[in-house]
């Protein structure tokens, strides 16, 4: 029972990270109806930025905040330079651009930082907090994730800019007619997604260690989380993240073994797409043809 509880708690911690990344995917999806395959690599690159800052002697939290800010700007730059030109291109062309972005970021990081696995510090104390069930980093990661999610919720729900971003994603034509600069709202969305991804990267790095391929698995879980929740539902993505995190850990520890953990994500993806394509919180889309 104790071991089980421990796995559930650990699952919640990684689940929070999947939830953040899934939310980043959903934010881009809502605005563009495309899944940004490079979201994980963007987060990975951000984490390396944080690593550089900390290695240069900056204390953890200032480095954390600066990384989030830089990632936000990088997200905007990527949207403006890479995504904007293919705005009206066919879906497959955009997907190719996303994959190119993934490969470029991955290689660029390997080129700058080498592929050697590095350890990444946790800002939380080392000794155990909640008895035997949860490490301080896991608890801290959940806390940070929840704070980020809460901040995002408040931003989208209560600020005029958040409202404008939601409007621009839903109805670009009407948005222009009330004076919203829709293009900039998309860029801001990319910035926010990149910033959220950066937090996820910095929270997962102490667990999976820092290397250019660290987000490959995480992105798969996040993708599964977004699909379970419904790819167009932010709340669903968050719930999905926690569900996937717990499932992955519990099944990995007691049922299928750690080596096959990643297949949980794949099974979830295929299962959801086959039997409930709209996810558990998403809308069913009906199109007249």
């Amino acid at each position: 029972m104790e071991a089980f509880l421990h796995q559930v708690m650990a699952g919640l911690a990684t689940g929070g990270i999947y939830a953040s990344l899934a939310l980043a995917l959903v934010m881009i999806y809502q605005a563009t109806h495309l899944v940004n395959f490079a979201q994980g690599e963007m987060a990975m690159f951000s984490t390396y930025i944080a690593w550089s800052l900390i290695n240069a002697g900056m204390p953890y939290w200032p480095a954390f905040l600066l990384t989030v800010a830089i990632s936000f700007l990088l997200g905007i730059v990527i949207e403006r330079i890479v995504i904007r030109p293919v705005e009206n291109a066919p879906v497959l062309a955009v997907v190719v651009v996303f994959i190119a972005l993934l490969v470029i970021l991955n290689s660029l990081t390997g080129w700058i930082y080498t592929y050697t696995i590095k350890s990444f510090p946790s800002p939380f104390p080392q000794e155990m907090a909640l008895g035997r069930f949860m490490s301080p980093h896991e608890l801290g990661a959940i806390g940070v994730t929840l704070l980020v999610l809460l901040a995002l919720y408040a931003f989208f729900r209560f600020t005029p800019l958040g409202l404008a971003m939601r409007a621009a994603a839903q109805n670009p034509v009407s948005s222009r007619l009330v004076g919203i600069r829709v293009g900039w709202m998309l860029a801001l969305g990319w910035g926010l997604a990149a910033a959220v991804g950066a937090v996820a990267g910095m929270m997962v790095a102490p667990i999976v260690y820092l290397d250019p391929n660290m987000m490959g698995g995480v992105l798969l879980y996040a993708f599964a989380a977004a699909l379970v929740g419904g790819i167009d539902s932010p709340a669903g993505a968050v719930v999905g993240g926690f569900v996937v995190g717990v499932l992955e850990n519990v099944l990995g520890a007691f049922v299928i073994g750690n080596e096959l953990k990643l297949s949980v994500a794949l099974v979830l993806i295929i299962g959801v797409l086959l039997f409930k394509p709209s996810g558990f919180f998403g809308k069913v889309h009906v199109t007249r043809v």
Partner: protein
Amino acid sequence: MLLEVKNLHAGYGQTRVLHGMDFTLEKGSITALLGANGAGKTTTLRALCAMVKTGGEIRFDGERIDGRATEDIVRLGVAHVPDGRGTFLNLSTEENLRLGAYTRRDRKAVEADLARVFGYFPRLRERRGQQAGTLSGGEQQMLAVSRALMLAPKLMLLDEPSFGLAPLLVRELFSILRDIRSREGVSMLLVEQNAAMALELADRAYLIETGRVVLEGTSQELKRNDAVRRSYLGY
């Protein structure tokens, strides 16, 4: 003149819809564009706020606005009540209204305008927190007019506000539009298929056929015109 349009051309892709329209709108007036389906009324309104590719000259309040982006034209005080109402279906009624005031920075005046809009359309106050997609067609039309009002516009472009409304509601909506013009001095460019109602409300009107103005005059003159009477008023 608040609006001066010269030799306006517009179209969709290869299809040309407007072939050199000329018209003007006096400050404080309601001007109607009348015409059959496909004459180019909606396209004219879209051309005025750069929603379609256009050529020609458009002056608003003395300034050239052709070639500017939609968002910038809106910022000059041109509010468009679009064809199909343009409701933000997943947002609440109040959020829809607040979006109308998105470009404004005078917070207090926005709150006052919200109260005023609710005064014109008490129904919207009742539906304030409700998802706008669940409103009836008539309520969404009121919402579209209200959203435009929230911009505190100089000019409102109204695309078939009577579309899909019960006759009683049309009458109510038009009397509110008349109120808005007389109380707030908002000028309006009204596109309508319901020519009788439009001529009741408007001071002047232009008759459009296949992308050109074929007749213009005061509403009284057009009502008396035999061709208009037979083709558009139906008696």
